[in-house]
């Protein structure tokens, strides 16, 4: 008797919990974005406004840029928000994405130990990288085909150098930005990071982080974010209209103002530049 009651309550609990999985159909939009974008907290800040003003719930998964593009290609998401312009343009050209619109930018910085063994402080990106290569100072790279990683690779290319893949001082971590920074700290190395992650890292270190910004402001360090709708020609079942609603909302003046006003740990991060 007692045993039967136990089984009954268990079954009831299971039923209640699982049934709620299948409840409620509101309008939703599935987005793929990058981990660094998600980590800034901007989406958590904007999403409630979007729902309030359009009645659509924004759901997003944060993965590497490569995977985000792949998800769009496989028709698993409706819209992308990424920051790898060269790859994005190719993506649209290949017919996977459509109506690419620039939304905002922030920047990348090169950080390194205060002792600055390669003497890169204040130099331009090209000069700094050349100095690092010549002095064979340790450089930590994400090496994970992410937007940040692609950016870093483009820096080497624009400096007229091949990516030092096989060099012993070029350490590819294959991990996220914070993990890579931590590894750079351990190895007293230089690395390239987005400002947002650096702000957080600096905050975590109580305002006095072991690695300091040594190179910034160079035009090439601009990190451009764009929204791309998944092409319905490639994915007939995708929510194209809803995706366009989101894209238009992102580039609207009101939203752009909100983006400008967004602060990460008290510091401004993004500069809106939709046109």
């Amino acid at each position: 008797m007692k045993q039967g009651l136990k089984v009954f309550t268990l079954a009831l609990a299971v039923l209640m919990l699982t049934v709620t999985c299948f409840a409620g159909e509101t309008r939703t939009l599935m987005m793929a974005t990058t981990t660094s974008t998600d980590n800034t907290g901007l989406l958590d800040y904007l999403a409630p406004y979007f729902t309030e003003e359009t009645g659509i719930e924004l759901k997003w998964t944060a993965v590497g840029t490569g995977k985000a593009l792949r998800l769009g290609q496989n028709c698993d998401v409706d819209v992308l928000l990424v920051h790898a312009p060269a790859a994005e343009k190719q993506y649209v050209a290949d017919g996977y994405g459509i109506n690419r619109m620039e939304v905002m930018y922030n920047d990348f910085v090169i950080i390194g130990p205060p002792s600055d063994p390669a003497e890169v402080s204040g130099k331009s990106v090209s000069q700094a990288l050349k100095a690092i290569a010549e002095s064979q100072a340790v450089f930590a790279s994400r090496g994970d085909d992410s937007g940040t990683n692609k950016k870093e690779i483009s820096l080497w290319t624009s400096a007229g150098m091949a990516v030092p893949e096989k060099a012993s001082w070029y350490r590819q971590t294959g991990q996220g930005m914070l993990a890579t920074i931590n590894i750079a700290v351990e190895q007293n190395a230089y690395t390239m990071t987005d400002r947002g992650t650096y702000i957080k890292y600096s905050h975590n270190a109580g305002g006095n982080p072991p690695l300091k910004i040594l190179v910034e402001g160079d035009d090439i360090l601009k990190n451009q974010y764009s929204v791309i709708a998944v092409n319905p020609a490639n994915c007939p079942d995708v929510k194209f209209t809803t995706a366009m609603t989101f894209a238009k909302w992102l580039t609207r003046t009101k939203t752009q103002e909100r983006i400008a006003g967004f602060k990460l740990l008290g510091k401004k991060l993004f500069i809106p530049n939709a046109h």
Partner: protein
Amino acid sequence: MDFIAAGFVKAFVLLAQGDAATWSAILVTLRVTMLSMSASLVLGIPLGFLLGYQAFPGRRQVRMVVDTMLFLPTVFVGLLVYAFISSRGPLGGAGLLFTVPGIAVGQTILAMPIVMSLAASATEETAGRLRVTLMSLGASRRQLFLTSLWETRQGIVVAGLVACGRVMTEVGISMMVGGNIKWHTRTITTAIALETNKGLFAMGIALGMVLMLIAFSLNIGAMLLKQK
């Protein structure tokens, strides 16, 4: 190091203050676990029991396959399930990607070999002796089968616990198939991965402690069941 102590305290704070994100992760974890455990127990216990109880041609080979599947890496399973339920995949129409049932499918694949292998082992251990005991009391074939199944309950509970532990703590499938979508498919483990990646180690520890508390309560329940 001090993030461990900070995390420990934060765990209770999060639960006591009813932090919405944390409780959402707890609920998602419980939902996914309930689904995957129900499926793997309902399928795995009878199959595992039969594997240990009944001799049949090819039995050893089947057991070898099941035992090999104990070594399935979660990311690997996640990738395979994604391939099937992605829009482009054969089961794309089912709309399972980025959902709780989708994660449960992958976790069932993970849990079933565990349930089957452990149930089979528990059955094998007792089957011979039970056969003599029950036949000597006059049991029919059907009674022998059913009573043997009930007699093996302790081993089966262990099988369920081990499988549940594996399933509740995996990240690979939840991440790959669930997408770690806040409020929807963010489980405690994917949340830990996220917070750790963001460098918020104390939060990671806190969530880990929450998971351990849930596991502890589950085990108390299982112990009461065993003592019956």
